[in-house]
């Protein structure tokens, strides 16, 4: 069958034509700008009214948006051709980290490349779904057992390396981005169930043989926060108090006592969601959640409109992974999930993950804006 997505060229206004020429997706850009703006606003309050940190974050956002715009100019075909190389390069860098990486705070994740240090695991966040989409794009779908095994192997290699660093949260999220590709490629429901059972069987083994003590501690703390009131348990207790005391309307900007009196740890990074809850209440959080859902929805829409398998799988995986980040962070801050150290996308203070996220959105924009409109 020929490609037959039945698109009609919609009449575009001036603004739309301009954005299209720049390969920018208007709705997505607007949503991202709204979330980032809200993020800066709350960062100012969460971080002791320090304009210096807000400015630094602003610079990072600028860099991240530029990265997105540059990537949006590349055609999906080009991205597809690059995928295996990026993946291979990323794996090589991870192996390098294993041997030469700089360890920051007890975990070996950073690679010193002269001018700056960076985490190769950031590359893998995009390289893994790209690689899997590349692998499946010209093969008959849904995948058979052999293709499933190959896909899983492509996921296991980088995630095992990242696990050894040790970074449980990141490796699980990267594994998920790959699993999303397999799921979207049409893996049969029966196999999905079997895989889940397998995973449930492996988990206890993993606990005994591969987990570091601090990682086990985090899970134990999750089950009983009071057991570690100084460390992670303290985080969860204080964060629940912050959110709960915020009520429906919140205590008002810069008026959150939990945040301002420094009871809430990691206020500007992993736990910034609690600051929003304390100062803007349920309404503030709901607004943010809706914005995140809309971003995911737009991403999935772009995926369904994509004209080749590679673009479709990749766009779908990027959108779902983005939402997974949101869910893991908000779940952790509200005490639904263990504290795994995942930042709130686009809002938490910090640069590396922001650039990767925006690069992902750049790919979405590239996929959407490089479609060819076919005559009927």
């Amino acid at each position, binding site marked *: *069958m*020929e*490609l*037959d*997505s039945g698109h009609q060229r919609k009449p575009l206004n001036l603004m739309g034509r301009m954005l299209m020429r720049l390969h920018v997706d208007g709705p997505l850009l607007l949503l991202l700008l709204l979330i980032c703006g809200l993020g800066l606003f709350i960062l100012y309050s969460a971080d*002791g009214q320090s304009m210096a940190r807000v400015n630094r974050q602003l610079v990072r956002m600028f860099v991240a948006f530029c990265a997105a715009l540059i990537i949006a100019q590349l055609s999906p075909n080009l991205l597809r051709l690059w995928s295996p190389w990026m993946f291979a390069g990323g794996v090589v860098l991870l192996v390098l980290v294993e041997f030469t990486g700089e360890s920051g*705070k*007890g975990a070996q994740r950073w690679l010193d490349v002269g001018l700056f240090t960076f985490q190769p695991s950031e590359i893998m966040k995009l390289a893994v779904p790209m690689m899997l989409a590349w692998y499946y794009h*010209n*093969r*008959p*779908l*849904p995948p*058979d057992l052999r293709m499933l095994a190959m896909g899983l192997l492509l996921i296991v290699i980088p995630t095992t390396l990242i696990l050894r660093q040790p970074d449980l949260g990141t490796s699980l999220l990267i594994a998920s981005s790959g699993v*999303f590709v397999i*799921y*979207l490629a*049409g893996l*049969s429901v029966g196999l999905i169930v079997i895989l889940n059972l397998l995973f449930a069987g492996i988990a206890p083994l993993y606990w005994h043989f591969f987990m570091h003590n601090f990682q086990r501690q985090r899970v134990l703390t999750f089950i009983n926060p009071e057991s570690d009131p*100084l460390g992670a348990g*303290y985080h969860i207790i204080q964060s*629940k*108090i*912050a*959110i*709960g*005391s*915020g*009520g*429906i309307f919140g205590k008002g900007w810069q008026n959150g*006592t*939990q945040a301002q*009196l*420094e*009871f809430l740890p990691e206020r500007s990074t992993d736990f910034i969601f609690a600051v929003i*809850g304390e100062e803007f*209440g*349920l309404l503030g*959080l*709901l607004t943010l*959640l809706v914005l*995140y*859902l809309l971003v*995911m*929805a737009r991403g*999935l829409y772009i*995926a*369904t409109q994509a004209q080749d*398998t590679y673009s*479709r*799988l990749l766009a*779908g995986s990027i959108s*779902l992974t983005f*939402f997974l980040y949101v*869910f893991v962070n*908000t*779940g952790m801050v*509200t*005490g*639904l999930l263990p504290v795994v150290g995942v930042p709130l996308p686009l809002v938490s203070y910090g640069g590396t993950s922001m650039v990767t996220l925006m690069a992902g959105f750049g790919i979405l924009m590239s996929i959407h804006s490089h479609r060819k409109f076919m005559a009927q």
Partner: protein
Amino acid sequence: MSGRDPIKDTGRELQMFSVRAITAAVIALLLATTVFTRLVVLQVVDHQHYQSLSQGNRVRIEPVPPTRGLIFDRNGILLAENITAYQLELIPEQVEHLDTTLQRLRDLDLLDDEDESRFRANLKKNARRFNPVPLKFRLTEEELARFAVQRQNFPGVDFRARPARHYPLGQLAVHAIGYVGNLSLADLERIDNTEYAGTTHIGKTGVERAYEDELHGKVGYQHVVVNAQGRSLQILKRSPPIPGKDLYLTLDVPTQRAAEEALDGRRGSVVALDPFNGEVLALASTPGYDPNAFARGLSSREYARLRDDPSTPFLNRALSGQYPPGSTIKPILGLAALHYHTLNPWEKSYCQGYYSIPGNDHRYRDWKIEGHGEMNLVDAIEQSCDVYFYQLALELGIDRIQLIMKLFGFGSRTNIDIRGERSGLMPSREWKKKRFKTPAERVWFPGETVITGIGQGSTLTTPLQLAYATAAIATHGRRFRPRLVDAVRDRTSGEIEQRAVEPQMVINIGVPGDWQHIIDAMIGVVHGQRGTARAVGLNSEYRIAGKTGTAQVFTVGQDETYDDLDLKETQRDHAWFVAFAPAAKPRIAVVVLVENGGSGSGTAAPIARRVMDAYLLDQFRPDDGT
């Protein structure tokens, strides 16, 4: 499902994808709803509960910084301790008229411009008006007294005791011990921030930096009851900090003091090692500076003055100063010649005051213009004959020279246990090929081999490196990694952990007689009739093996005569002396460098003698109470 068709079915694929995407979106929506439900429970259903918890959130966890470990020398003499320092502080909410208060403090001469501007900067950063802001660090006793009598007139201003680092011996061994200073942004990048909660200072150089982890200890916590504004009211419970570990250095204070006193007023360095275990007995670099000033906090003006001082007090000459070794390497070259049998050590050759490579009329001059006359190897070391070593070097060739020199540690770091060491330079053909760009520059010339024979040319060494090499001669080739820390003591358990002696590969060249031959020649330098350093050998109670060296800084033209008096001080030669003693059973190896000191025998050798006396002779030893 029967659709295992090898041909891609795009239409079906697209339809399946849409179903999958919509399913995923629905699951995501469900997850979002879970979070939302959780939020409703927290923020609506249990809101009252959490609100009262938030209002009653009275217990804050505060860090209690550990006390830093102490540092002692090998005899137990205290080198770094913690004292109580008083700092003047101001609590903004208790001061009505800030400007007049500051002015009155200035009238009392307790504040200067710099204190005030720093205070105003800190005041802006301080979010809570009930928290004290420091006005002045480290009040002197006299300032403390001056303020104490006026105290009741300054509501909201008070002094507070804080622990502070103090170096009771002042600038003694500052380049080895190092100092602590205020935590900088760069420091924060490399440390575990929770471990440094409440700590204001960190080791910046020397042992203080290299053994930071041992010295620091582990942070403690206390639960403090605070009121709604965050003011501390009461301590509920405490998990006390674990104090840092004490360090026992290999340094010997009397030896170190002798070195610094002997160097006083000059730019130079002394390194003394125990040749049989690598213990650093003295490590001096002059001029030094007062580490207490750093612990107290230097004003930017004071810092700039030290930084821009032309005699570079911050430079640790012992580790980072790189100089041509001059004649001090002649014993090693002699050993190399014996190893490769390129000469008969008893055969005499004639020194006429200059040397020319056969077929070339360029004259490489001896320091003694009229020449030394008939010389064998021992004579040439004793009298430091340049011509003999020009020829020796040419016969050995640069490849063999650099091979042997590298065995003695030239061109690489000794890996002493503090930072800042430089590797010096041992030139070779490969080095020239890498270092230079044009083919003409990349060629190794015989003339370069000739001047390498007297430690000139491109060769560079640090005093520590030369001490390491000298110690290796003393031990007939056994080498040990130099180290400053001998033992680490856990203050809570009293447990002492001795640092291991680290033997390195033995230099296996020549036969034992060759080594003794060279050592005898070095004894001749100090005790022989015509030895270049015979002046320091007079009336010594022990036998010394040594070698003088003079490193040229200023190149003398082919037909000029060298005249010290005509040269500016900074163009004068660097003076070296290397030695070990007692010659038969060495206990100390010493290297002395005096920048622009002129002659090794006149300037450097007497310093080495004082250092060795301080270590070897009983009358200079500290009273050990027996």
